[in-house]
Each structure stands twice: as C-alpha cells, then as structure tokens.
C-alpha cells in the first residue's frame, strides 16, 4: 500500500570528441586512423556535393533542395557503421547517407531536379527512396527489420528522421511495434533543433527525444550529433546489438541545421543569427580536423587531394546528370503497377505518348 517507486530510468549522453577537438582518451583508442580518415573524406565529399547542389539550385538547375550542412556527422558516422545487407530508410535530408553508401551522385542530382529515376536505387545498395511525408517511413524500417527476423537474416534496418518526425503517429506505432517484436532496427533521430520554423521546444515538452525509447521498452541514448566518432560508436553498438537479437535502439543525434530548411525557406524569418553563429562553432568538420591535426593525420597534401577528389566526383556527376536523356511522358503511367490496366493503355494512346 501507499506510494512506491516501481521503475527507474537513466538517460545517457555520449560525446567522444568535443567542440574543441579534444577526445575522450579511453573512447578514442578503438578508432583506427583509417576510419578517422574515412570520416573526414566522407564529410568533405558531402559538403562539396551539398554546396554544389545549393548553387545549382540557385542557378535554376535543380528544384527545391534540402541542405545537409551541419548534420554531416550524424549521417556519415551512422552510415559508416552499416554492413552489407543492412537496409536504410532515409528522410529527405540524408544526402550524407546516400553519398556514404556510394549512391550515384548524378542520380541524387537528377532526383532533386525532379526526376523519379533519381530514386531508382542501384541493385547493390539497400536504401529506400527518400521519404517526403515526414516520419511516414519509420514503420517501413520496422517492417524490413521484421522481415529480416522472419527470414533469419542477420542484418538490421537503420531509419533516419528529424525532431519533427518524432511527433508523428508513425514514429509511435513504428517504434512500438519494433519494441514488441524485438526487431533488429536502429532509429536515428537527427534533432537539428528545428522543423522548418518550429523549434524543438515546441515540438515536444520532453527534455530529450532519446528518452522516448523507454515508451517502447528498449534503450535510447543521446549523442553529440556533431561528433562523428560518437555517432559512429553509438550506431555501431546499436546495430551489433540488433543483429544479436537484442532489439531496437533509439539514438538521438543532437545537432543543428545550419542552412535554411530548404532552398524554398528563409530561416532568418524565425531564428536569430546569433543562434546560428553559436552552432557554427560546434560544427562537425572543424573539430574533426583539430583531432586529425593532433594525430598527425591531416597533411596539407592529403587535405588537398581529398578536396580535389570530391570536387572531381561531383563535377563528373553533374556532367553525367546533364547528359542524361529526359524521361518519356509515358513513364508517368508505366511504373504504376507491374502491368498496365486497359484504361492506362488507352490513355497512353490518347495522349500520344506511346514510344
């Protein structure tokens, strides 16, 4: 009788390299130099791509585009923790993930130009088309993980969404199902503090998003989302646990969207320049470079090569993209189902679209 405590929870926060580039000595030790260089190269590639995409958009050569600037560590740290056979379920801001998985850059550009063929995923990459309706892809990740479990495949699914996405029913139903079935799924919330103009504080009164994991009976952790090592480590651990049958994990990457929401947005309408400036000081590349310098991993020569290689890759992709032949109008109808209905065939004829 009376009142008693029946459950206790603790939420942990993980950071391996801080804003000043100082690393936790015990946690950094397991990171081989090669991996750190991989982080660096992927961030450079992502930034290079992102900047070019933004300028292409300004020139009218792409449609509305969602910049990834500031969130590279969340995406690259987690994507590099994936293994072959794992599946990825991205939202619309995961350029860093696509690039890290080796997704053809020209296809990414093509997608943002407004071409469905940009999301005709190459056979050797297990990623879903980007999800435009926020949060709706979360149950898909649970479903794929469920299928892996049923089929006995020792893989996991990895799902990306934002702080805004965590308010949707899909988040709740998807994570809850994953918890009940103990599915091999890892959920990564990139809490970039904003959902267009709505600040995190207005998205939920919960102090963190990570703590929601306990609603579903599994573990959650908040990670410094601008610390690529921290993100890698948390994701790697979560994926391993998932594949061993330990069930899902929710990882909140605490980060910041340094650019406008998309190129159609003007963030100066709703947030202060000081806030952005403050977060620029915490961005993921600077601290990684300091760390690499200290470790002697960042020669001028190396940096130059990495930059040039990234630039060359993106340049080549832009050329490929622009040389790509346009779709046929018929394609609007052709991929609806495995075969055309009589009405669709008639429509193709009536519209004069048959090839």
């Amino acid at each position, binding site marked *: 009788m009376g009142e008693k405590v029946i459950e206790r929870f603790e939420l942990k926060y993980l950071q391996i390299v801080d804003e000043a580039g100082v690393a936790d000595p015990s946690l950094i030790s397991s990171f081989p130099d090669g991996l750190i260089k991989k982080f660096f190269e992927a961030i450079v590639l992502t930034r290079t791509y992102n900047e070019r995409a933004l300028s292409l958009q300004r020139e009218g050569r792409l449609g509305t585009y969602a910049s990834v600037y500031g969130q590279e560590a969340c995406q690259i740290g987690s994507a590099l923790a994936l293994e072959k056979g794992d599946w990825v379920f991205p939202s619309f801001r995961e350029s860093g993930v696509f690039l890290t998985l080796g997704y053809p850059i020209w296809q990414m550009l093509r997608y943002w130009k407004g071409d469905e063929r940009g999301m005709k995923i190459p056979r050797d990459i297990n990623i879903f088309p980007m999800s435009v309706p926020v949060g*709706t892809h979360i149950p898909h990740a649970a*479903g794929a*993980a469920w299928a892996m*479990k049923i089929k006995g495949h020792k893989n996991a699914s990895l799902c990306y969404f934002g702080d805004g996405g965590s308010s949707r029913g899909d988040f709740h*139903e998807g994570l*809850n*199902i994953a918890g*009940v079935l103990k599915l091999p799924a890892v959920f990564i919330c990139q809490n970039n503090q904003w959902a267009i103009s709505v600040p995190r504080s207005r998205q939920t009164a919960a102090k963190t998003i990570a703590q929601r994991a306990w609603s579903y009976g599994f573990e959650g952790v908040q990670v410094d989302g601008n610390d690529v090592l921290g993100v890698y480590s948390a994701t790697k651990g979560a994926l391993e646990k998932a594949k061993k049958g330990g069930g899902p994990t929710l990882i909140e990457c605490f980060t910041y969207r340094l650019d406008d929401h998309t190129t159609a947005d003007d963030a100066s309408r709703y947030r202060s320049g000081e806030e952005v400036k403050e977060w620029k000081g915490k961005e993921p590349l600077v601290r990684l470079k300091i760390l690499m310098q200290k470790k002697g991993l960042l020669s001028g020569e190396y940096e130059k090569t990495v930059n040039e290689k990234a630039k060359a890759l993106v340049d080549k992709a832009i050329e490929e993209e622009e040389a790509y032949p346009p779709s046929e109008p018929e394609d609007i109808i052709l991929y609806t189902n495995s075969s055309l209905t009589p009405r669709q065939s008639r429509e193709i004829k009536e519209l004069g679209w048959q090839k």
Partner: protein
Amino acid sequence: MAKINIVQAINQALREEMERDADVIVLGEDVGKDGGVFRVTEGLLEKFGPARVIDTPLAELGIAGAAIGMAAYGLKPVVEMQFMAFSYEAIEQIFSHAARLRNRSRGRYNCPIVVRMPYGVGIKGPELHMDSSEALFCHMPGIKVVVPSTPYNAKGLLTSAIRDPDPVVFLEPARLYRAIKTEVPQGEFTLALGKADVFQEGRDITAISWGAMLHRVIDASEGFDCEIIDLKTLKPFDEETILNSVKKTGRVVIVHEATKYCGLGAEVAAFLAQEAIMHLKGPVARVAAPEAVVPMALLEDYYMPSKERIRRAFEEAMKY
C-alpha cells in the same frame, strides 16, 4: 466438392497460399490465437506458427507501414484490418507509400501486400463497423480493389490478390461471411483480377453490383430480363464486359451500399456516359445509400438499398 462459406473460403486461400509460399504471412489485430474476430484466420497460428501469423499491437498505420517494409524486403504480407473504418488511419501509408513505391523507385521496389478488411452494412454492428468506402481506395492510382460475392470467387480472387506483385485492397462483405455456402474446389485456383462475371444474361437491363448487393440484385431481378454483372474487381473494373452488356440492353442500374457522391457507381456511370452514351436508352440509375453516414443498427435496414428500391429502379429503367 465441399460446400463452404466465405469465411472458410478465405481461410482456405490463406492456408493454401501460406503452404505454397513461405513468404506469405498474415498480420493484424487478433488474427492469431483468436483467429480473427470473424474467425477468418482460424487455425493458421497453430499451423504456421507465430512468426508467420502475427498478432500486432493496436496500430493500423503501423501495421500497414510495417507491411510495406516487409513487402519491399521480400515477404508477401496479408494484413487484416479488423473493420474497414479502422483502416482510415492507414490511408496515408496505403496511398502515399504502398500505391507509389514501384513508381517512385521506377520499379526497383514493389509492394505486394494484400490489405483484407470486412466491410458493408447489414450486420447490426456498432458505429463505424459498417462503412462502405471502397471508392476511397479506388481513387488511388496503384491500388487494386477486389470484392468477392461468393465463396468461390472469395477463394480465387484472394489467391490472385496474394500473388499479385502490387498492393491489393481486398474487401470482404461482412454480411455474406456466413450467409451463403457454395461448392469450392479444394486446392489452389486463381480468378483473374480485372474481370467481371456475367452472373446472369439478359436483354433489357444491365444491373451492375458487387459484394452483398449482388444478392439483392438477383432477388430483385425476378420478372425482369436482367443481365446481372458482378464486378468483382472494383479497380480496375472490367470495362469490356460492362460495355458489351450495355450495348445490348441500353439500360443500366448500378447498385451499391456506399453513398453516391463520388462512389464507385459514379465512375461506372461516368464511364458509360463517355463511352456508351449512344447506346443508352434512358438515364443511368444508381441505387445507393442516401447522403449520410451509416446509421446504427435500428435504422440500418432503411439505409441499405432494398429489394423494393432496386425493383423500382428496374421499373423506371423499363419506361425508356
């Protein structure tokens, strides 16, 4: 051949497809131990085990969404929504994802899910247990919509729906579940999606209906030389069969349980107004529910198109 009802026919189709293809799984609320609230999945858990016959949390959008992920990964999930109205939370998953996955990925992924649900008035159910909103699903490019009217076509159509490489909404007329028994072959057989049945040939009137209403139409047709079409696939419907019949009769009566406004009857009538206008002798009649939501049990019988209303429509048609 054994005589079985629709519940048994669907159960048989599920069972045989699950035996045939290890990728076919069944999921939904109460589909496992309870065998479904209508007992449609009875015995499947015992036979196929809890990995393939799965009781889910009460979360319709989650269930549909998970099924999409499963399907893309390579399973063939058959989802049960406990009643049609409870599928509405899942409409976004069905419309924005299941229906579009193949198109959005230009064929890299497809989404072979079947979403089964009982529907329709006539079971004295509580509120929201008797909706007939087939038109909502029919308006979604990429979604096929199927309704059986007999145990035989319940089995054949469901088998086809499960084998279909794309998403199918499979509507089960709850009123008919145990109302009719017919002979149904044991063992697998399929009925092509997109094909209607001419249930009865006739010269004067083409009566078009599906599901439970087919039986009302049959009842009402006595004394009329009525060609009775059972649509079976609501999307895409069998334009050829309808057109051939209307060319012959010149008179059309469409009967459905749903309200008229943007119901499937509207599409059938509009199709005829475009393609068969020169063959029509008189108005295309729709006998349907009045513009109102399904009433509760005490008024339910007034809502459903009655034999008398259908006969009146036939009589009216014969004036032209």
